[in-house]
């Protein structure tokens, strides 16, 4: 699996590869590939314990209150849904958790310790990774390189190691390639490792974003509307994918509009409206919660089907 073949062999003759015709391929994931998070030096909490706590977070932009004393927590090993009508503050909440915004008051505790004023890349190194609502891949890099950037989060090769091809560089490159290929294979993208990200079909771009986030070996994977623009068949596959990711040892936080998907895949759901938490509970409880129905379900049912 993690064959340590150095990636920079070069003297082998070019191998003839038959790439599947993009027109007739259907991207299937390979759920059996082991993509479990690697040890990134953060304490691993056991199943069911609190991984991350959002504690009375308030965020103001000028006079606008984007988040108003929002509190919830995520348990290790669960799939938590974060839902709410447009403008409810879901993505803003993500941004607070990943260090894009500093909360006006309150805070986020991760593994029992406050995140504080850590920079974005430091938070990623601690094990929180995310995808983006509007895809933000490195468009002019290949799929493989996109994933490698994610793996690199825990690498430390610098100019000197690279320049003299020191053992650290070789080790990290070999390990990085192996993991990147595993992730791409898992996502069913192994045939497209060498395609530029911007040339991939839409669905593959979404999957590549998830692969890139997984590459950082996160304790917590945050998916921001991963099903946007998917047809029902693709959505069903995505549910499968999210479950498989969880089964491989990840905790997932999911922002999603599609109620069927959220109800089908999550263990618990937190509902936001106008920056406040209005409900929290199991999918069944949320389905029957009158406040949620009033705020959200009634509005969205037509386009959720």
């Amino acid at each position, binding site marked *: *699996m993690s*064959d340590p*073949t150095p*990636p*920079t*062999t070069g*003297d*082998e*003759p*070019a*191998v003839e*590869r038959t790439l599947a015709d993009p027109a007739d391929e259907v991207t299937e994931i390979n759920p059996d590939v082991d993509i479990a998070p690697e040890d990134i030096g953060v304490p691993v909490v056991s199943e069911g314990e609190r991984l991350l706590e959002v504690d009375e977070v308030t965020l103001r932009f000028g006079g606008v209150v984007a988040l108003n004393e929002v509190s919830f927590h995520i348990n290790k090993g669960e799939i938590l849904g974060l839902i709410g009508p447009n403008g409810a503050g879901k993505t803003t909440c993500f941004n607070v958790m*990943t260090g*894009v915004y500093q909360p006006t008051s309150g805070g986020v505790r991760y593994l029992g310790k406050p995140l504080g004023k850590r*920079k*974005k*890349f430091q938070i*990623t*190194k601690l094990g929180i*990774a*995310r995808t*983006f609502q509007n895809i*933000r*891949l*490195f*468009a*002019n*890099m*290949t799929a*493989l*390189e996109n994933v*490698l*950037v*994610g793996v*690199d*989060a*825990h*690498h430390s*090769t*610098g*100019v000197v*190691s*690279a*320049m003299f*091809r020191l053992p650290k*560089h070789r080790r*990290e*490159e070999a390990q*990085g*390639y*192996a993991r990147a*290929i595993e992730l791409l294979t898992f996502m069913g993208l*192994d045939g497209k*490792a*060498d*395609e*530029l990200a911007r040339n991939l079909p839409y669905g593959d771009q979404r999957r590549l974003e998830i692969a*890139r*986030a997984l590459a*950082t070996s996160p304790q917590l994977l945050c998916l921001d509307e991963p099903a946007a623009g998917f047809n029902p068949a693709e959505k069903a596959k995505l549910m499968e994918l999210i479950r498989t990711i969880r089964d491989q040892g990840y905790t997932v936080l999911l922002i999603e509009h599609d109620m069927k998907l959220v109800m089908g895949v999550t263990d618990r759901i937190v509902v936001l409206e106008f920056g406040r938490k209005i409900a929290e509970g199991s999918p069944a409880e949320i389905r029957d919660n009158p406040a949620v129905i009033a705020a959200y379900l009634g509005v969205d049912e037509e386009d959720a089907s």
Partner: protein
Amino acid sequence: MSTTTSAPAAPKKSSPGFRERVDNLPKAVKIALWVVFAFFLFLLPLLNIPFITTEGSDFGGVLFTVATYVLVALGLNIVVGYAGLLDLGYVGFYAIGAYTIGVLTSEHAHMSWVVVVPIAIVVAMISGIILGAPTLRVRGDYLAIVTLGFGEIVRLTLVNSEWLGGAQGISDIPKPPGLELFEVPSIDWSSGAPVVDLGTTSTFLKFGINDFVPYYWLALGIIGLVLVFDILVKSSRVGRAWEATREDEDAAELMGVPTFRFKLLAFALGAAIGGLSGALFATKAGFISPDSFQLLLSILFLAAVVVGGAGNRWGVIVGAIVVAYFPERFREFADFRVLVFGLALMLLAIFRPQGLLPPRRTVRAKRADDRQAVLEEGEAHV
């Protein structure tokens, strides 16, 4: 690179292009081709090839100038092409490198050239860090103006500082210590056909005042080293981090790339190579003054990178040759070169924003593919 392959015309689909075909050659043939090409470059100033050779000015000197532009373009490419930072004050680092040589070998000390060149590189790099640390946090378009200002500050400081020789500059910069290993004869074409002329020779690495060919050889060697450095660093975590930062800074940061650190690194490495080029320039010229470091030079450097294709090291080399060589070859149009490069920048921005030779990402992609195949094969054998 020369395109003299007489390979049989293969069916179009299976042979994607020159680069791919060269890549598919056996390694030994590739190395041999490179050696032949390097040897050709080494002899170029003495071949006196008609038409290419400049009439009015010494061809060795012209080739040296071209070589310094190539070096500068390689350095600026790290900043502009890889990391996506628009640096309009690159001439500042070039000047710092040149003046470090001037100050330490002539004006205030008489240290050995061999010792001073590394110092020049370090001084330029440190000034890059000092300029970059505060400014790389600001928005990209501001950076252009700040660096532009920096280039002018350096020049004005040189003009106004008596310690640095003021407007007169620094003269009597000593020649680097040379070796006199062997003579290389030149080719004479006056009879219409090439004849080896044993009377007109260049001595391998004797740095004199009349024959500029050894300086060209020196620059050529340094370009080789910088190219190897460039290739090794680019194909590592560092190169990927630069590209990710250029593509989407926020996303890169959220994927664990300390973008500021890598931008600063690119800036410092670019500055170091700029300083090295300036040091070479000062060595060959023997005399430097603030006039040698006009803002215009920054724009020509940038033109070299953009015209060639920012992000592609071979592209920027071509760009540097275009920018440095053509005005020398066609001296009668020298007055118009700024006009022409200004027009070229505008036209390129509109019609070919990726430059003459855009980054060959497909080539890289192919290699990644092969590597993956190797990995998979390895797995299959387990």
